[in-house]
C-alpha cells in the first residue's frame, strides 16, 4: 500500500486530549470527531487537511487516555498515516486494531512542515520527495501484520474463527 501526502509536523508527547478533547467524546462518528482533531493545540488543523496528508510527530505520540476516538478522529479528518519517533502503547494497539496506518521512524527530525512524503507501508519505507531522502523503518512483526492485513482486529477475529 502506497500513501502520498504532505507532512503536518507535531512535537513530542502529543496526547489524546490534544488529538480529541473529552467534550467531543459524546460521538463515535469519525467525520464528526475529525472536524475537532487537534483543536486545542492547533485550532485550524482539521480544515487544512487534504486527503492523503500525513502527521509527523516526535516521541510518545498518543499518550494519555485510551480513547479510540483519537485514531478515529485522525482518520476522520482525512489523515492517511502517522509517522512518529515512538507511540504510546494504547494508541499503538488502537491504531493496529482499527487499521490506521502508522510507522515508527527515528529520522522524523529531517522532515519539515509541508514536505511531500510517499510511504510504502509493507516495505516500511518513507520517501521524502521534497528533500530527496529515504528513511527506512522497522516492519511490524508478523502477528501485527496479520491484523493490519485483515483491515482490523474484528475482521482478523472473524477470519480466525471461520478457519
Amino acid at each position: 500500500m502506497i500513501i502520498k501526502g504532505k507532512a503536518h509536523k507535531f512535537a513530542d508527547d502529543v496526547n489524546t486530549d490534544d488529538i480529541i478533547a473529552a467534550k467531543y467524546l459524546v460521538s463515535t462518528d469519525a467525520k464528526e470527531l475529525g472536524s475537532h482533531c487537534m483543536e486545542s493545540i492547533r485550532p485550524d488543523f482539521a480544515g487544512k487537511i487534504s486527503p492523503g496528508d500525513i502527521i509527523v510527530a516526535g516521541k510518545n505520540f498518543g499518550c494519555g487516555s485510551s480513547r479510540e476516538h483519537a485514531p478515529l478522529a485522525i482518520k476522520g479528518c482525512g489523515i492517511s498515516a502517522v509517522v512518529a519517533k515512538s507511540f504510546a502503547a494504547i494508541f499503538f494497539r488502537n491504531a493496529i486494531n482499527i487499521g490506521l496506518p502508522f510507522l515508527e521512524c527515528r529520522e522524523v527530525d529531517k522532515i519539515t512542515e509541508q514536505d511531500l512524503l510517499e510511504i510504502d507501508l509493507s516495505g516500511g519505507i518513507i520517501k521524502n520527495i521534497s528533500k530527496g531522502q529515504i528513511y527506512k523503518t522497522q516492519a511490524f512483526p508478523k502477528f501485527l501484520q496479520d491484523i493490519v492485513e485483515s483491515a482490523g482486529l474484528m475482521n482478523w477475529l472473524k477470519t480466525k474463527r471461520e478457519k
Partner: protein
Amino acid sequence: MPHTIAEKILLAHTDKKDIKPGEFIEAKVDLALGNDITAPIAIEEFKKAGFTKVFDNKKIVLVPDHFAPAKDKASANQCKALADFAKEQKIKNYFEVGCMGIEHALLPELGLVMPGDLVIGADSHTCTYGAMGAYSCGVGSTDLARAFVDGKCWFKVPASVKFIYKGKLRKWVGGKDLILFTIGQIGVDGALYKAMEFAGPVIEKLSMDDRFAMSNMAIEAGARTGIIEADQITKKFVAKFKRKSKFYKSDADAQYEKIYEWDVSDLEPQVACPHLPSNVKPVRKLKNIKLDQVVIGSCTNGRISDLRLAAKIMKGKKVKFGVKLIVFPATQSVYLQAVKEGLAEVFVKAGGIFETPTCGPCLGGHMGILAEGEVCLATTNRNFIGRMGSPKSFVYLSNPAVAAASAVTGRITHPDEAI
C-alpha cells in the same frame, strides 16, 4: 526461566510453556471493563461484526462514570447504550447511577479484581489494579469488543522495570507524591511499554489507598501496568471477598530492564505543573501560584483516606474567598462513609461542594470545567492542555493534603502552612 510478577500473570493466562518480553501473545482475561465513553464503540463493533452473545456475562463490567449522571442528551444516549447492552446480555456487573462509582475505585471495592488476575479495561487508568498484585492494563474499544466475543486479548509481553523506595516518608507525603516524583524523574515516556514494579521498604508499609494512587498513574509514565507484590496488606484488603486469588512474587533472578533505587526520606509533597505530569516540583518551590479552583477526588485520590486527609486540614477553616473547592468521592460507599464521619460537613462548612461520584471534572467532562485563564490544583492524574476545560487554563496536580491546604490559602501551599 525466572520471571517477574507481570510475566508470571501473563504466562498463567496463556497456554504457552514460557514467554519472554517483546513476544506477542494471546491471553484469556479474567475481567473486561468498559465505560460510557469507550463501551459504546465496543458494542457497535461487536454488533457490526455480526456477534450476538458475549463469551461470559460474569466477566464483563460496564460502568457509566465519565459523563454520568448524564450531562446532556448525547451522553445520556451513550449511558443508555451500556444499560441496554447489559440488559440484553444479562451482564450483572452493570452499575447504574446510584450504585455507580469511578470504575477504578469501584472494582477493587466490590472484589471484582483479585491478586493474580489479568484484567483489561477500555480506560487507560485500568493499570490501577496493579496495586493489588494483578496485571491490569488499558486497552481500546475494539480490544473490548474482541474480549466480548472470546474473552481474549493480544499482548506484547512488557519488559519490567523495578522501582525501589527506601527510607521513611515524611508527614504529608504519600503514594501520590512517590508516583509524581517517579514520573518527574523518568518522564512521561520513561516506562514506555514497560511493566513498572514498585517495591522496597516504603512500599511495604504503604496503605492500599496510597498503593492505588501510585499504580493508577503508571500510565502517566507510559507503562502498561504498575505492579506491587501482593502482601499482608493486600490480603487484609481482599479477605472479605470469596473469589480465589493468587499472590505472585518476582523471582530473585528475574530480569529487569532497569532498576531505580531512591531514598525518599527527604521527599517533600510533589506538584506536577502545567502541562505534563512529569513537570514536577517540590511544593515549597512554587511561590505564589494563585488558584481559582481546587479539585479533590478521582480514581487517583477519591478514596476515603484521601478525603480524611483533606478534611483533617480543612476542619474549622474556610476556603479562600474566590476559590471554588470541588470534592468528589470516588464511589457511593466512600460518599456514605464521608457523610457518616462528618467529612462532607467539613467540606461544605468550609465553603466547598461535595459532588456525586463521577469522572466529570477530571477530564473536563462536566461538574467543574475551567474557564480561559483559570488555574486549578487537582488531586487527579493529568494536566495536559485543556484537560479540565479551556485550552487556556492551567492544571497543577498534587496529593489531597496539599490540595486542601491550598484551598484554604488560595495559592499552592505546603500543608504545614495551613494547619
